[in-house]
């Protein structure tokens, strides 16, 4: 965990109200897929937690959706602006459990953390299948980027305007995989839990106070006691989850 200043390198609206933000700064503590950063935004008291989409030495990529006035302010920041981040937060995904042909399932705001995970797994020589779920064709992003990693990519949209019509679970039917990793809204995670054929890891969202385990604002119950989503999570293994 570190607190440091990052400088905005670029920001682009890659889908309606969805922004890709590239920052330059100290990425030493940012190597693990599934972790997040906590961003201070001028005029707002609490930081905004955003999961890491990609990281290379000195360069951090985040993708977020504008959901309120805080992220609205963030979306209006421009090249050269400075942001104070807490980095290296959360446990992240455990890659050692992946097996040969892991399945990655991202839904909406849960797509970005799948990218760094896919990249690391691809670098480790895994055969990847990636399911990316959206509401509609206009919202789809990063399909090509996942393909460029050599992954087999399945898109689902609720309205059927792109890829398979329906939810990510529709795309899971009949797939063969050694293990799975997923991130997305709560109902999607529950559906994946119910549909999945193997063990897997789930990344959860919760409203956080601090993001580093101090306030216990984001506690959830697991089969092995209380866990803080921000510090003991956001990734939980299938086996410990209580719905």
């Amino acid at each position, binding site marked *: *965990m570190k*607190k440091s200043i990052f400088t905005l390198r670029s920001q682009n609206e890659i889908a309606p109200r969805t922004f890709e933000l590239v920052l330059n700064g100290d990425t030493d503590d940012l190597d693990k897929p599934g972790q997040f950063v906590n961003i*201070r935004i001028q005029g*707002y*008291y*609490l*930081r905004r937690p955003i999961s890491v989409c990609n990281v290379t030495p000195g360069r951090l990529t985040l993708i977020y959706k504008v959901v309120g006035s*805080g992220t609205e302010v963030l979306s209006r920041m421009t090249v050269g602006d400075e942001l104070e981040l*807490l980095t290296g937060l959360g446990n992240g995904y455990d890659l050692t459990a992946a097996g040969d042909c892991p399945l990655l399932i991202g839904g909406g705001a849960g797509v970005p953390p799948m990218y760094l995970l896919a990249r690391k797994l691809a670098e480790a020589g895994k055969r990847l299948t990636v399911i990316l779920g959206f509401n509609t064709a206009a919202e789809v992003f990063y399909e090509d980027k996942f393909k460029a990693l050599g992954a087999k990519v399945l898109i689902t949209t609720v309205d059927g305007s792109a890829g398979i019509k329906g939810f990510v679970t529709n795309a899971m039917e009949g797939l063969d995989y050694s293990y799975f990793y997923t991130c997305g809204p709560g109902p999607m995670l529950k559906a994946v839990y119910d549909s999945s054929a193997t063990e897997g890891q789930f990344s959860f969202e*919760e*409203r*956080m*106070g*601090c993001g*580093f*385990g*101090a*306030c*216990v*604002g*984001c*506690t*959830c*119950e697991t089969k092995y006691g*209380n866990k803080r989503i921000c*510090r003991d999570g956001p990734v939980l293994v299938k086996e410990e989850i209580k719905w």
Partner: protein
Amino acid sequence: MVNTSVTLCGLPMDNPIIPASGTFGFGYEFADWYDINLLGTFSFKGTTREPRYGNPTPRIAETASGMLNSVGLQNPGVHAVIAEELPRLKKVFHKPVMANVSGFSEEDYVYTCQLLDKEPQVGWLEVNISCPNVHNGGMSFGTLPESAMAITKAVKAVTTKPVIMKLSPNVTDIASIAKACEEGGADGISLINTLMGMRLDLKKRKPLLANVTGGMSGPAVFPVALRMVWQVYNAVSIPIVGLGGVSSAEDVIEMMLAGATAVQVGAANLVDPYACKTILEDLPRVMEQLKIDSLSEIIGGAH
């Protein structure tokens, strides 16, 4: 060289800075960020007789210059605190700690305080009769002088260490509650706990917090906290621990001028893990600017 030392209820402290209960866990989480022995002390997570999960999530909401929480006293219970948390703390913190205690009955408070009083690591007992996030208890003890006095007396009867009563700001007359605690034998008063507030989710048309209401903290509440410290300083002669929105070295000095002997820092720790460290680094410079040689000399200095 300025002097930041103070004495709180007979115990000397290198400085008056105390992370507030509920914002600093059992300390070791912050030891990952900096050496917490820099602090005067800290007040650990509110501890009850039995383990508590607390309230359902969401438990956190943002407000203008502040936040709401409805954690509801999540803690592992006093036995686990003594068996697990204190030994773990011992490795990273070498000063007397402030033990924060909550309860749902007089017997609860007595039971928990009696156990923690015996722990050598504990310097002060901070008795929270003001938690706004638990039903049938906590805050209700702190809203009537009679019950505040009763809890104070009961705890004092079974303990040897200084007892600091932590008060709720959600009352008509804070001075009368503080006086009742003093009459009951309290060694100090800490205030304020959080102001009860709420926010709604406009899209869902429902409260943002699963518990409906929560406790507001952060800079927004500082002027209310300062006013109550001022009023209680006028009403009692035991030391006051001031808290509520303190975020800077200037805020610390303002609280002390209003009457606080020591100052707790709460929500600021959550938005900046280095908040207390930064305050400690800034204090000497701010003291020099304001021509303050010794912090202990300015306590109540604005009266």
